[in-house]
């Protein structure tokens, strides 16, 4: 048992961090997702860490840094899809290694009994994806892209950095991998999304603390007031506790999966469900509450378009709909306690 980062893991973290600080500055990130950004990320190897011999814990560390910089794109989905390469029995029919991939989960299935478009299917990065995959009861499916690319995009998506295609119905699909692999995708996708959110929560602590030191009112930095200081302390605790949860979940995935890509016909161990759902709950909460905390510390500036705070908050909301909502994750954790 050694739950400290290894030297290699620290180097990985620092490497991705300096990459983000150099290339994915606030200005660049605010320009939104594009192919160049995707290619640069791909070139760093963040999508293929697993194939290059890194574990989920390492991948999680990299995703914490991507989240800290709020790097846009279908990052988690692309990383998962890259893991399909070489998996026995999987025929993707596309070159995933050079394609952004977006995804819809089975919870996006429109309810056919609902009239009108109340249940439009929202697909992040749908218009930019070379491939659209989904998780269903049966397994991982690939959707027909023509329908996706011909569907309109929201002119004002909640998060300006996450374009959203609006589909009237789910397009036709073909099964590309069995349910055992889909089950593992749910777990790994949950951990990577959570890792990204922990990075977002950490960024909120850092920017809000810097602002509280810089901003003066009543002739002193507002960070000296306990009302503000305590808000920041709670944010710091939330980020650090969520980080421990996410790292523990990633490490548990590594140790229970080992070399395998799925659990086969075995039931997913309750300890894995518990630690993954727990990390999802805490990271989702940390990203959301810390973004709101940061908004509060920034005062009026936090309510502007100019300051990045709203981008973190909006992303936190969006990400809390993927790989299990908070309620679904709480239910999964509760069920694992039986």
């Amino acid at each position, binding site marked *: 048992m050694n739950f*400290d980062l290894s030297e290699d893991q620290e180097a990985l973290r620092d490497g991705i961090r300096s990459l983000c600080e150099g290339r994915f500055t606030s200005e660049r990130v605010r320009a939104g997702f594009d192919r160049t950004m995707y290619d640069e990320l791909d070139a760093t190897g963040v999508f293929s860490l697993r194939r290059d011999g890194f574990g989920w814990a390492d991948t999680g560390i990299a995703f914490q840094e991507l989240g800290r910089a709020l790097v846009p794109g279908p990052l988690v989905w692309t990383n998962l899809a890259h893991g399909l390469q070489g998996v026995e029995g999987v025929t993707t029919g596309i070159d995933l290694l050079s394609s952004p991939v977006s995804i819809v989960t089975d919870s996006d299935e429109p309810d056919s009994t609902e009239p009108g478009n109340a249940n439009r299917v929202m697909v992040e990065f749908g218009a930019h994806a070379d491939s659209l995959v989904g998780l269903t009861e049966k397994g991982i499916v690939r959707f027909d892209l023509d329908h996706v690319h011909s569907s309109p995009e929201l002119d004002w998506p909640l998060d300006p950095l996450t374009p959203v295609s609006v589909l009237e119905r789910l397009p036709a699909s073909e099964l590309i991998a069995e349910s055992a692999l889909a089950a593992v995708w749910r777990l790994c996708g949950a951990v990577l999304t959570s890792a990204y959110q922990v990075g977002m929560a950490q960024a909120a602590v850092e920017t809000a603390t810097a602002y509280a030191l810089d901003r003066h009112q009543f002739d002193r930095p507002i*960070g000296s007031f*306990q009302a503000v200081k305590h808000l920041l*302390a709670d944010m710091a605790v939330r980020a650090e506790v969520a980080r421990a949860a996410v790292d523990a979940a990633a490490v548990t995935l590594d*140790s229970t999966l080992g070399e395998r890509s799925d659990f086969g016909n075995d039931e997913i161990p309750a300890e894995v469900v518990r630690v993954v*759902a727990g990390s999802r709950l805490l990271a989702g909460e940390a990203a959301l509450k810390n973004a709101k905390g940061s908004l509060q510390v920034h005062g009026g500036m936090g309510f502007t378009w100019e300051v990045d705070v709203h981008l973190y908050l909006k992303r936190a909301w969006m990400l809390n709909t993927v790989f299990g909502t908070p309620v679904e994750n709480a*239910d999964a954790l509760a069920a694992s306690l039986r």
Partner: protein
Amino acid sequence: MDLRYSAADELFRDELKEWLAAALSEIDPAPDRDDWSARVDFDTSWQKKLFDGGYAGMNWPREYGGRDASPSEQMVFLEETTRARAPYVGVNFVGTLHAGPTLVAEGTDQQKTEHLPRILRGDEVWCQCFSEPGAGSDLAGLSTRAVRDGDHYVVNGRKTWCSFGHVGEFGELLVRTDPDAPKHRGITWLVLPMDLPGIEVRPIETLLGSSEFCEVYLDDVRVPIENRVGEENDGWRVTNVTLAFERGTAFVTEMIDALQMAEELAPSLTDNSDKRELAHVVAELDALWALTKRNVSQAAHRGLPGPGAMMLKLAYSEAREKLGEICMRVLNRQGFDIHNPLVEERLRTLSIPIAAGTSQIQRNIIGERLLNLPKERPWVVSGK
């Protein structure tokens, strides 16, 4: 990063489990909470059993009777003793988790030899004499005075919230030795033999209707100079060593205990919102256990625990509060009986956000020492 235990750790676990099963079958049922002489016997004889089995002072040096165990063995020990429902540290709390670690870090050779093995054997019960009626959160504002008189300090003052004051044979005592120095620089840490003339102990009845805290009145108490731990007027630094142990590790046992309690509560819940709230608490406690492992790993490999050590107590307080409220809701009218263990726990745990630095003080510490935010300006009486 790896949470798995090595084969050697698992071997240690097996030995420990076997030992625990045998040792626990030999002990009497826990005594009534108000029968203090029975409680002292019960807690100290368990401590002696641990010592004889080689499991006392897991992280203490061998030369003073400890085991000098690896971080993973310490974690295994905490996991297995909780799972086996071994007796809680009880009256050995201050000795094993507070004063003892402070002596290990700061004591003289003579102090270590004299006290450490006896603490580990359950031969010595300690109490804490830190807080005063006028010095709670502002502990450094304490006014109990110690004046040098030959080879003694003559101590006068009044201490409060002394854990186990009525059963302790030694106290960890903070006194002011230089009233003219800035408040943090005039404090000294002393070992107080509780049988010295001039000491009067009065129990405090808490909202549980019981008394594990006392007031201690000190009237011309003569404490030998060799009882000083650290240098004269350097007691605040020594105190922070003590408090770091208290905030960093002393809560770990009850944290795992809370996790076990939450797991046991889970099957009895029927309401979905209760289940989800409990799931949240379990997620938090699981994460705090992981954070504890991180702190212990970092302390072992880097010599210093990471930022998580400062956060553990605050985060645990919050999780425990939620767990306690779920319990009261689930008990409903069965909770009218204070002898119900869950009710007693709910009442006892009201002290957690207050003891060892209130949650508000913890937030100041995190804000000022970790985030480097400035202190709030000193209060000035208006018009002056």
